[in-house]
């Protein structure tokens, strides 16, 4: 199974541009790139009204549950789902096997229109992730100054 690649700045900016162009074309209010385990990788749009970290993890798990149901029903081509709401709808589109494009948009934008552009954006994002995978070893991570003993108490109680 593919791993989500390590993103360097060029990848990140390319993905951000794709998300922003997608928002411009569709009038969607929020678009997120979410790794399938529930990590929020990148978001664009108006995130004031919603906790995007929460939304990402709920979206990834909801998609996984629906995909499992689809498989049980013999549908092996499940790659998107839609939640109808008022005034906002949500659309999930698989980018590749490691991540999803999650879009929140006003109902009047029209799901067909948003889905059409989501297909293109997801394909372009998948291509960019393939490029990122080729250099995924990337610059590495210099953790040479980290003493593992220093992380013995990563999380502290308020009164400590």
């Amino acid at each position, binding site marked *: 199974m593919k791993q989500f690649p390590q*993103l360097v700045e060029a990848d*990140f900016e390319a993905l951000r541009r794709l998300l922003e162009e997608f928002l411009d074309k569709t009038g969607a209010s929020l678009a997120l790139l979410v*790794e399938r385990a*529930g990590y929020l990788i990148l978001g664009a749009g108006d995130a004031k009204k919603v906790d995007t970290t*929460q939304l990402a993890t709920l979206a990834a798990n909801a998609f996984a549950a629906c995909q499992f149901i689809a498989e049980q029903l013999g549908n092996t081509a499940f790659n998107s789902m839609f939640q109808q709401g008022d005034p906002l709808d949500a659309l999930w589109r698989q980018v590749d096997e490691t991540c999803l494009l999650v879009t929140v948009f006003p109902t009047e934008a029209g799901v067909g229109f948003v889905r059409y552009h989501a297909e293109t954006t997801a394909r372009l994002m998948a291509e960019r992730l393939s490029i990122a995978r080729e250099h995924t070893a990337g610059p*590495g991570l210099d953790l040479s100054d980290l003493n*593992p003993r220093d992380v013995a108490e990563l999380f502290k109680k308020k009164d400590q």
Partner: protein
Amino acid sequence: MPIIVHATKEIQIKVVYYGPAKSGKTTNLEQVHAQVQPPPGEEKSKLVNLATGSDRTLFFDFLPIQAPTIAGYKTKVQLYTVPGQVIYAITRQLVLRGVDGIVFVADSQYDLMPENLESFADLESNLQTLKLNLANIPYVLQYNKQDLPNAAPREYLDYVLNDREVRVPSFTATAAEGVGVFDTLNAIARILIQKFLFEMEKKSG
């Protein structure tokens, strides 16, 4: 494998609290949520609880927390629980997807050892379905509910649950009072970061 985004200098790690029904998995997250000290300048995160009407976990609980910056990288840890009841086997499998580390929360009461063992076997089976092997995933054991009169001592619980080729760190706890919760959390976080360091060193040759 943790998600690394060099562009934003972030590392994201997923830890799943696993164990039999009512062993205290949700209580662990509630205690972390109530007591954790966020890094300076960071806001306290929210705990998501997808529960039934009777407050039993239906899908998962979720709490994102942030550790102090490590070598310039923000370390975000996502804590999940799974529903413990037997009927939710598939749900547990979904939540385990992409897991980096596991906290197995056992109920220390003597008469619940079969449930602990059944849950542990279920964990191994679910990981196998995901083509993962527990031997390759860092995990720790927490022996919860030590305050109860019929709680077994740590030695016995180690004999039942930790008598394997590779023994893992184990912690006694009374999660409802916050006892042992942070010891467990810090242990799994430390192990995960050490594993991560090791793998990065291996990659860089």
